[in-house]
């Protein structure tokens, strides 16, 4: 049995982040995109906690709480925006929203 090192956590975190990124770019549903962003955030959280423990400091845990708070607020605002967008366009595909184009 190989003892768990910080590298394992970092690898898991990298995998989670890659999954989240791929979800953001590849999925065509805004809610899934939002979920993928949450995954990315949690990957980052995992990195913070792991490195914090590795270095013997609580800073990583403190900042994780901040990130979780922000993530909760972001989820609330994001879902509200998605509902508003859906009412506007009757679709949840991010490609439908190209009004930023000139």
């Amino acid at each position: 049995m190989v003892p768990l090192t910080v590298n394992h956590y970092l690898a898991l975190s990298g995998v989670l982040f890659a999954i989240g990124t791929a979800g953001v770019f590849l999925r065509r549903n805004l809610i899934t995109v939002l979920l993928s962003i949450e995954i990315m955030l949690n990957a980052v959280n995992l990195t913070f906690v792991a490195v914090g423990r590795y270095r013997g400091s609580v800073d990583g845990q403190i900042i994780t709480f901040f990130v979780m708070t922000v993530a909760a607020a972001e989820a609330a605002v994001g879902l509200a925006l998605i509902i508003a967008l859906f009412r506007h366009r009757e679709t949840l595909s991010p490609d439908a929203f190209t009004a930023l184009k000139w």
Partner: protein
Amino acid sequence: MLLLIPLFPLVGFVVNACLGRRLTKSISGGLACAAMIASFAVSALLVSRILGHDAAPLEFTLFEWMTSGTLHVPFTLRLDHLAAVMILVVTGIGSLIHIYSTGYMHEESDSEYARYFSYLNLFASFMLILVLGANFPVMFVGWEGVGLCSYLLIGFWFRKQSAADAGKKAFVVNRVGDFGFVLGMLLIFATFGTLDFQLVAAAADTRAIEHGAIGVITAATLLLFLGATGKSAQIPLYVWLPDAMEGPTPVSALIHAATMVTAGVYMIGRNAVLFSHAPITLSMVAAIGVATALMAGTIGLVQNDIKRVLAYSTVSQLGYMFLAMGVGAFAAGIFHLYTHAFFKALLFLGSGAVIHALAGEQDLRNMGGLKKYLPVTYWTFLIGALAIAGVPLLSGFFSKDEILFKTFTATNPNRLLLWGIGMVTSLLTATYMFRLVFLAFHGERRVTAHGSAHPEEEEPVAQTGHAQAAAVAHHDSHGHGHAHAPHDAPPSMAIPLIVLAIGSVVAGYVGVPHALGGSNRIEQFLEPSFEVSDGRGRLEAAGGGAQSSEPAGVRPVALQESHAPDATESSHDNTSTELMLMALSSGVALAGIGIAWYFWLRNREAVAAMTARFHGPYTVLLHKYYVDELYDAAIVQPIKLLSTGGLWKGADAGLIDGAVNGVGQTVRATSGVLRRAQTGSVRTYAASLFLGVVLILGWYLLKTLRT
């Protein structure tokens, strides 16, 4: 005291300009006249103080105007003998013309009337500053000021297109001359370090012999003379004066005959010492003067507008004055200026009375027989015409003969040619003036033809006794408003005419030449003004011969032989010459009148025959030698072409607008390309963001791994 002279008209101007709308005609007109008369009274009082031959000039410095380094220009007025003659002419004749104007302009509305008198007063004020200025910049203030007033008054009836155009033409043409004046002024300052007339004269006198100074003086005087040709309507800048006749007739009399146009002559007289050190300039002045006199005289012979004939006559007489200046006879030139002011003002006012009586008719072809209706105008006009023609014992005779005599005896190598042309012009003067008199006042009254559709010569011959009734009927049918017989000038106009007529007769008697037993008082009076005026300079000039080691004091050019003390030795010789010349020119004057009498009174078919025979020259003269057309083709059109083709369409539209639009178009084209990158798809943005982060981080990672 000296300040009061220009101040009175200035006050009149301010009051009339500010309150003119609310004043009645009698108040605004009366105020303007009172200002002029007050100015005249002060002038006369002050002139009486400097009557003596050696009286020092009066001076008054108002304030320091410009001080910068060595440039030091006080606002100084100076009254010397030359200025004395001028201010008396300006205020005296000016007063008469103001009085005349109260009658002439009476049909204008109250505010227009006040505007007219405010301009007229402003003009008088500037003219007096011009005359009294003791240095070039002060003179230049007046010089530009009178130009401005001339513009305002030519364009007084600015709703009429031709009047507005004529005003602009006068202004623009004068600017060409003024540019010469300013350059000459700067050159004088650069050379002599001063701009005061007396100091410049003294400096020119002592420094003229120095190597190189002659060239500079010649250049400076030529530039000043360019200014004079603009203001005094000489070749090549005379074209504005005939057009200036669009202004009200009293304005033509005051500004474009008696005073302003003589400013150039006055300026040369003021700088007599300077000019006499520049023989090349002087011969230029004489040549231009005599050429202008001849050219304008010939044009005047065929013009049909009564005021234009007088305008060309003015140009021609100014040419005489320049001829006098050019041969060094400064006193004779100023003398002619002074007599000319009387009779030319008289002639203009007389023509104004005619125009007034005929409700605006200016065409000589539609006049005739007015002697019966306008006796006062006729007799005064006749005196003026006799005076300008040079008939013996009237004022023009003395001054013109003085010029011709001085030309004949001048040191100029071409003096005989100059004199000959002068004589021919004298003949022309008499002829065109009496053509005017006979066409306007004698013969039968002609129908007021509307337009010149009728050939010139047929009408009067066809007229018979009942033409008068026909003429009246003709008028009525056209509703022209002057069907009744023309009325003579009202008193406000008649009195100035009579005073000026008396002046035209007696004005010459201040300058009766030695040959006729007179003492030529005006010449002696003016003499100090044409020499180095301050005592020191004169002493140097006199003592220069003795101090052989210091040649700077010697006067290299004698102004005129009669000025020199040795004039007596040749005086007998001169007397007989002068008498002979006088007889000759009197004969010429009478011959000119005779020619006019034959052609335009006695035998009018001869005129038709002559015009038919010399049709080419006649057309050329009628079109004023095509000079306006020439200037148009040579200067106006190229400038227009350059402005539209080159500067407007090329430089402005092409270059400047092109640059501005080009910047815009470049930005647009670039953004057109760049905007393809902006898809609006959020995911593309996120992907590029991600890619960027990965690239940057990857680069740093690689860098770390390398080391």
